């Protein structure tokens, strides 16, 4: 209720400054801090660029809160025009047939042409249906990449690893030089989902869940994934890897403070890291296993997409299409890319940033895009799994137990697969 009042107040305040004839549209998102400010700047640019539509962005807290507010609002018929939904929540909104208008339909209906090939490969499929039609409009996209403490590697006299085998070889030297060789910030996104994408291994049945919600099952007892976590556990025991819990920042901190040599973070982290890291750093792709056949493919995108909610007037939908069109223009993409660190999602925008010489100044900013532009494998396009935020919670719980020494890696993945499949079966019932 209070949220609604504030929102109306905000909407009024915004519309008062713009033309009264304009069609008002709202955009609920889950970004805070600097990223939230950049969203306001993007909206201001859109409102300044045309007079027909007035866009009001509203922050709803975190990604989860934005999705929950969007759902609650939809059920009471008060949904915004645009809702930002994060990667793990994609299945929830895409499987709710009738909750959203596919972005591609919206844009072509508004009279624009839509070229799927204009988008870089890594972002093309994740929010699309199994035929490749864009349902969500990719917005803030990121990739899990490896940050390198240049000082540490120099001291140890080693090169940054491309594969996990190379990491195993240099880890003792890094430890000897007085560093924690490896830290990471999100085992689910970086070492599970993107383990499957980077090593080109099937994550779930039914084409990673894209083909149907019925009978979709996880394949997390895959021997390669079990091997990855057995390695992580043994590295942790030998002092080559350190785990500081499921919180992102507790782990990142060790890298910032020049105590860790390598950190798996997000391509979107580098802006903040530039300010906080106490040593020079660079970045490279998320390592893969050289021993796995066909590994080294592109990663899934992380981040979130924008969804056009159904049940709105044609005039408002036209404005949303205008905004999506505006958002994918190279100028705006480059602005957003440089202001936040999220990757540019169109090839034209990437070329433009390159031409500007941006990557010569900030080479780390290019790593994420390059990783998403790597050749796609059969299993690196995405996953579509219902109740996935809860499945991630199960993973986080079991991973915590692995590193606390309470369960074996094999048992942990058996539990994740069993409980995860129960959730997927439940989800299939809700969607049925």
């Amino acid at each position, binding site marked *: 209720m209070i949220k609604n009042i504030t929102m109306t107040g905000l909407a009024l305040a915004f519309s008062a400054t713009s033309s009264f004839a304009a069609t008002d549209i709202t955009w609920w998102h889950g970004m805070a801090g600097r990223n939230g400010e950049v969203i306001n700047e993007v909206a201001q640019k859109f409102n300044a660029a045309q007079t027909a539509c007035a866009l009001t962005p509203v922050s709803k807290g975190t990604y989860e809160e934005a*999705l929950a507010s969007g759902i609650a609002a939809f059920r009471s018929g008060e949904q915004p025009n645009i809702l930002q939904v994060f990667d793990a929540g994609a299945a929830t909104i895409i499987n709710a047939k009738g909750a959203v208008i596919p972005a591609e339909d919206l844009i072509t209906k508004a009279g624009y042409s839509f070229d799927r090939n204009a988008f870089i490969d890594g972002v093309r499929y994740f929010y699309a249906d199994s035929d490749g039609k864009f349902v969500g409009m990719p917005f803030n996209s990121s990739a899990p990449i490896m940050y390198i403490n240049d000082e540490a590697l120099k001291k140890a006299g080693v090169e940054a690893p491309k594969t996990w085998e190379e990491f195993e070889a240099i880890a003792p030297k890094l430890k000897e030089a007085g560093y924690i060789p490896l830290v990471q910030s999100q085992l689910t996104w970086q070492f599970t989902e993107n383990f499957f994408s980077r090593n080109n291994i099937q994550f779930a049945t039914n084409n990673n869940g894209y083909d149907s919600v019925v009978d979709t099952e996880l394949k997390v007892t895959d021997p390669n994934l079990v091997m990855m976590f057995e390695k992580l556990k043994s590295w942790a025991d030998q002092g080559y890897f350190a785990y500081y819990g499921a919180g992102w920042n507790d782990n990142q901190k060790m890298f910032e403070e020049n105590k860790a040599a390598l950190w798996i973070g997000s391509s979107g982290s580098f802006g903040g890291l530039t300010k906080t890291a106490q040593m020079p750093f660079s970045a490279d792709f998320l390592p893969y296993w050289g021993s796995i056949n066909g590994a080294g493919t592109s990663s899934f995108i992380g981040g979130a997409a924008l969804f056009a909610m159904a049940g709105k007037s044609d005039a408002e939908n036209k404005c949303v299409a205008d905004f999506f069109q505006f958002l994918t223009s190279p100028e705006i993409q480059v602005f957003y890319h440089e202001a936040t660190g999220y990757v540019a999602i169109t090839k034209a925008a990437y070329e433009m940033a390159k031409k500007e010489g941006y990557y010569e100044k900030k080479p780390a900013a290019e790593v994420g895009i390059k990783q998403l532009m790597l050749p796609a494998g059969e299993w690196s396009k995405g996953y579509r799994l219902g109740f996935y935020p*809860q499945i991630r*919670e199960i993973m986080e719980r079991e991973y915590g137990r692995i590193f606390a020494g309470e369960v074996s890696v094999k048992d942990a993945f058996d539990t994740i697969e069993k409980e995860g499949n129960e959730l997927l079966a439940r989800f299939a019932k*809700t969607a049925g």
Partner: protein
Amino acid sequence: MTHAPSLSPTSAAPTTAAGFFRRFRSAPSEPHFAKRVQFSSPFLPYFFLAPQMAIIFTFFYWPSVQAIQSSFYLEDPFGFGSTFVGISNYTDVLKSTEYLGIARFTAVFTAVVTFFSLAIGLLLAVKADGVIRGNATYKTLLIWVYAIAPPVAGLMGMMLFDQHIGPLVKFVALFGWDMKVGLNYTDTATAMIIVSIWKQIPYNFIFFLSGLQGIPVSVREAALMDCRSGFRRFRTVILPLLAPTAFFLLIINTTYALFDTFGVIDVMVKDKAANNPITLVYKVYMDGFRGNDLGGSSAQSVILMIIVFVLTIFQFRFIERRVHYS
């Protein structure tokens, strides 16, 4: 038991507690007839009650009925489709070893937090009651912690127990305890319990102190003449006179530990429960608001309602019997 207090799932909510509180406050010291108020019209009392009833119906009964209803369905979060699944949401939850583990932790957590926050609150109140010089300052210092909102308390607790910079972690490291809050289940549980107790002590302190000050000086003096042992005087005279306060606080503290510690837990697990301990109410939030599993989450909240209902009946039937109000 001379009268049956009206019992309903609301009993745990502050509504009953507030009514209880009113009774408790007016009971011991004032003469009985003071409560008899004459209204000029028979409708007037209902008129005064109406706003309160409206709030209870809108914010409690109506959502409860909805929760019970949706606990029998599996529902698409956006409200497109829902399948009637009978009691399978309940059986799924009750069969889950995870859920039972959380229930066990919740029971231990509630018992420990309630016991220690009551015990320490009482101890401090008794000591503060005895202080003669500078007692205003002393009491204020003990009370003002209550003004801290639970998330802020959680945040402070988190800083105190932070694995990298927490002063308390550094302190216990001196004794060889490598405390890892957020990583180790027991360590996180310990930190959570300490912060939750700390947060609730001032509240109990205020009530116990006012309860103590309501005990007539003549009674204390008489007791002092009869018995030299301070502890025995406390046990046989002061404590029974404090019983109404203690019983009220027992209910309030149980509710606090079950529900109001949500903010503390949320901040301490930093939004990612992982392998850390959580309570039942946090699980409802995780499944319902973050996982969008409305049916399962509703079933869990109905289970919580039943637990609270049973607890309240138990407390009123078996404990209140021993409480004397005047």
